[in-house]
């Protein structure tokens, strides 16, 4: 059921790198460094602004991919990558979308495991890519069976 979604993309969603969200996120990962949270440190830095931690894109909305209905429970995060052209700046708008780039199934001791590959993109307002990220989501047979019933 996931194979049909390969190549499908979500529509771009405008996200803002909000100061409060960055502060909360930095706190939650125990990294309240002044470059993330202190305005003066940001102004005096090479960026002229505060920046966001590299895993901050977890917060962004990437829009819905048609036909891809992932359950909110039972998924296993297998791998995660981020690739940056530059750090994210606090206050800027980032346009985000995702694409299904692959789906494979492998037989294991607990039945067939599904491996869903998602690639996500973040562009600035001029359309230049700031970051891309890839996630591998593992979907167990039990979860897939549950999804088939609904």
């Amino acid at each position, binding site marked *: 059921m996931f194979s049909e979604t390969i190549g499908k993309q979500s529509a771009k969603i405008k996200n803002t790198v909000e100061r409060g*969200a960055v502060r*909360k*996120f930095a*706190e*939650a*990962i*125990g*990294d309240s*460094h002044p*470059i*993330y949270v202190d305005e003066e440190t940001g102004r005096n*830095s*090479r960026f002229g602004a505060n*920046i966001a*931690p*590299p*895993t901050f894109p*977890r*917060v962004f909305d990437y829009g819905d991919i048609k036909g891809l209905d992932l359950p*909110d*429970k*039972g*998924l*296993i*995060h*297998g*791998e*995660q*990558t*981020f*690739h*940056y052209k*530059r*750090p994210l700046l606090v206050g800027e708008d980032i346009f985000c979308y995702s694409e299904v780039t692959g789906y494979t199934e492998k037989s294991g001791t607990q039945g067939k495991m599904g491996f869903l590959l998602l690639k996500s993109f973040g562009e600035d307002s001029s359309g230049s890519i700031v970051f891309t990220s890839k996630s591998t989501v593992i979907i167990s047979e039990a979860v897939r069976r549950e999804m088939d019933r609904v």
Partner: protein
Amino acid sequence: MKMTELQAGDSLQTIQLDPVSRLDLIKYAGASGDFNPIHTIDEEAKKAGLPGIIAHGMWTMGNLSKLFTSYYEEGYIEDYIIRFRGMVFLHDTITLKAELQDKVENKLHFNVAAVNQADKEVIKGQIVFALY
């Protein structure tokens, strides 16, 4: 110590986190928007076949990058690649590590990992730190 002074085989200062608390995970759920209840509610974790709540993989990955934060004037994390290998449970003590593997022009390639109190790698991967 500056990034540019590091040689292959050198490590960044390791960080040992306080034992994982429920509040850590509730805070991360709120800050990230990941409210999967296996990270915060015992009964939901048990229903999912786990002995107890587990940390978000992205919480651990988020923590690990702080080894690099103070070097922001020298460069930035260009690539951050992580494989989630083991679960992190309440009260686990996680240690964050980064070792410089090699330097290719202005790119520093690090092996990074978070290990638990039994010295088992819970996440593992690479960071490419690009110097300006």
